[in-house]
């Protein structure tokens, strides 16, 4: 066999070499049986819808614990489709015509998907894949095939498919999955987004011919950085890619070795590099990648996975397991940060025109004292013998900080009364994610112990951009001069009052931002576990003097494009 190259779209970085595994979905055959009475068939549909809703909810939670809310929102959209009255109508009319439920679901979902696919606007047409995915899920449940039995790899392989739905991608992920390539799809397709989240290389948009050319077991080089797939690579090509892969692996290994050491600038100033985590698995991952602490422990998943809020005991168990996994490292635990964009069923949300400016986070907690107090009690009790810190989200005024601290004081007093053991010296900080908090840092600093910049929300609120809105997402620029100026203002004001400032937004792990943040004097960087080795390496390459000079130059730039370009040069120079 001679070598062949297929060009596609580089969707997720990395090079892997291995045999192809052609992914064909489990055939979902419509059984041949006589139709039961319509009501009986319909009842099976309703049960299937309920189960689909539960599956989608747990998929969402597992993605949410490891990734960002936007990726998880894919499964929210699927939940809405499961419950759609048009789907119900289309199913029901087929049942009334004497079809069995399996056939009715297949035809109905296909009809709705085709309707979306036929639309002219690309945004609308892209929802076709989601409707198909939902239809298959329902059919699979009706056929009694379990969610996990879809495909099991038993040796390392590169997944090749025409297209992968979000459900496929999540369930195909295993220790043996080397990477993904698909015939269709673009940079913003679900598979591309999920592959990046999972840290697996991916090439999409190879074209239909890819499926004719590749068969099960074909040796492949998947170059997710260059956007190419090489079939039956020659010895020379293999050597070339193996060398490139080794070089990347060696660099990563060196970084990982360096990563077990504490982070320090070239002139030896220690800065803390921690991790953002959501559960005990990600805590272990953080330690493995060299986290010196947890800059953000999200607690939302505890609240979203059940039909009622978690009890004090459930929370204590969850927090303790994370504290134990982190040993004597500090853990900043953020109190409940939810809102109308991802509401749990047990909290009554009115319809909000703009949930990001609505009833959320600390605003909910300050109204629902029982909910808030249960969490604070659990944190204080779980923190005995550990280095825990409490952080309040979405603070936009001094009154809110005071009110939250009053509730905390009440919780302490109540614990004293009942004589339960709790941690007495837990520092209290706030997230700086509203421009208001950034502007008020000097005043807030008098009443709290530390700050953590939440740059995703700070960027959203400063630039007035909803990044889940595809039409304006490109205006979401974390390296925008206005955002950087607010960050500088926050750090300067906090330092003047002897308080330290961390950052738990995506910016803290962004290569282009790290030298700037060092120069602005950021004390703690918290990021996804996988970003830690490279961040520590990068930090070690800059002296404080050079970083300060870079920060000064950056703050004089007019646009984020200028800043990006300038920082690209700085990075090239540094990497050598």
């Amino acid at each position, binding site marked *: 066999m001679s070598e062949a190259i297929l060009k596609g779209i580089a969707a997720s970085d990395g090079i892997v070499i291995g045999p192809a595994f052609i992914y064909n979905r489990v055939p979902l055959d419509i059984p041949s049986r006589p139709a039961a009475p319509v009501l009986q068939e319909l009842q099976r549909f309703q049960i299937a819808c309920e189960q689909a809703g539960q599956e989608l909810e747990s998929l969402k939670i597992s993605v949410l614990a490891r990734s960002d809310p936007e990726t998880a929102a894919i499964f929210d959209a699927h939940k809405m*489709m499961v419950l*759609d009255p*048009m789907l119900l109508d289309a199913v029901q009319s087929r049942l009334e015509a004497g079809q069995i439920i399996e056939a009715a679901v297949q035809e109905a979902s296909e009809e709705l998907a085709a309707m979306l696919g036929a639309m002219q*606007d690309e945004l*609308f047409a892209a*929802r076709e894949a989601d409707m198909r995915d939902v239809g298959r899920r329902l059919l699979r449940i009706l056929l009694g095939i379990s969610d996990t039995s879809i495909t099991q790899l038993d040796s390392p392989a590169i997944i090749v498919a025409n297209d992968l739905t979000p459900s496929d991608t999540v369930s195909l992920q295993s220790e043996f999955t080397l990477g993904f390539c698909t015939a269709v799809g673009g940079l913003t397709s679900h598979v591309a987004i999920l592959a990046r989240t999972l840290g697996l290389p991916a090439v999409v948009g190879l074209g239909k011919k890819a499926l004719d050319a590749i068969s099960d077991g074909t040796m492949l080089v998947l170059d997710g950085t260059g956007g190419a797939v090489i079939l039956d690579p020659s010895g020379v090509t293999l050597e070339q890619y193996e060398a490139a892969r080794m070089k990347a692996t060696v660099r990563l290994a060196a970084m990982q070795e360096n990563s077990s050491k504490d982070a320090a600038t070239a002139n030896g100033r220690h800065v803390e590099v921690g991790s953002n985590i959501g559960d005990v698995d990600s805590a272990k991952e953080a330690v493995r990648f060299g986290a010196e602490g947890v800059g953000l422990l999200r607690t939302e998943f505890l609240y979203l996975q059940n039909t009622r809020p978690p009890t004090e005991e459930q929370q204590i168990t969850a927090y303790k397991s994370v504290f134990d996994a982190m040993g004597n490292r500090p853990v900043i635990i953020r109190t409940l940060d939810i809102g109308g964009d991802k509401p749990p069923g047990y909290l009554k949300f009115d*319809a*909000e*025109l703009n949930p990001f400016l609505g009833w959320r986070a600390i605003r909910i907690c300050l109204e629902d004292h029982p909910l808030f107090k249960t969490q604070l009690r659990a944190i204080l009790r779980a923190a005995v013998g550990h280095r825990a810190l409490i952080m309040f989200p979405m603070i936009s005024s001094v009154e809110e900080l005071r009110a939250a601290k009053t509730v905390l004081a009440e919780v302490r007093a109540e614990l004293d009364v009942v004589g339960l053991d709790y941690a007495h010296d837990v520092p209290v900080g706030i997230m700086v994610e509203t421009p208001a908090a950034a502007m008020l840092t000097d005043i807030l600093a008098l009443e709290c112990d530390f700050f953590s910049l939440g740059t995703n929300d700070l960027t959203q609120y400063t630039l007035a951009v909803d990044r889940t*809105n595809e039409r304006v997402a490109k205006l979401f620029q974390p390296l925008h001069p206005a955002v950087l100026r607010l960050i500088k203002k926050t750090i300067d004001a906090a330092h003047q009052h002897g308080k330290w400032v961390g950052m738990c937004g995506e910016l803290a792990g962004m290569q282009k931002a790290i030298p700037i943040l060092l120069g602005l004097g950021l004390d703690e960087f918290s990021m996804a576990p996988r970003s830690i080795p490279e961040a520590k390496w990068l930090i070690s390459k800059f002296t404080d003097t050079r970083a300060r000079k870079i920060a000064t130059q950056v703050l004089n730039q007019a646009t984020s494009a200028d800043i990006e370009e300038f920082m690209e040069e700085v990075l090239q120079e540094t990497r050598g």
Partner: protein
Amino acid sequence: MQTTSIVVHNKVGLHARPAALFVQAAMAHQSKITVRNGEKSGNAKSIMGILALGVQQNDTITINADGPDEMDALTVLTRLVNDNFGESL
């Protein structure tokens, strides 16, 4: 039965978050609510129905509500559209 026509100024039209908000607001009402865009018409309580209308910026839609809370339904949905779903233009 109550009917009103309104121009959708929102940039993405009735898609993504605006569509989801519109459907959620419709679902909070008991009345039967339909939306018409040109030749097409759909159930306002269905995300598929709303998406299928393909409503783009500056399209005029006609909302029809029939039921005990028809006035309120129209008021709420009209306000949602007029306020650009809480987004700026």
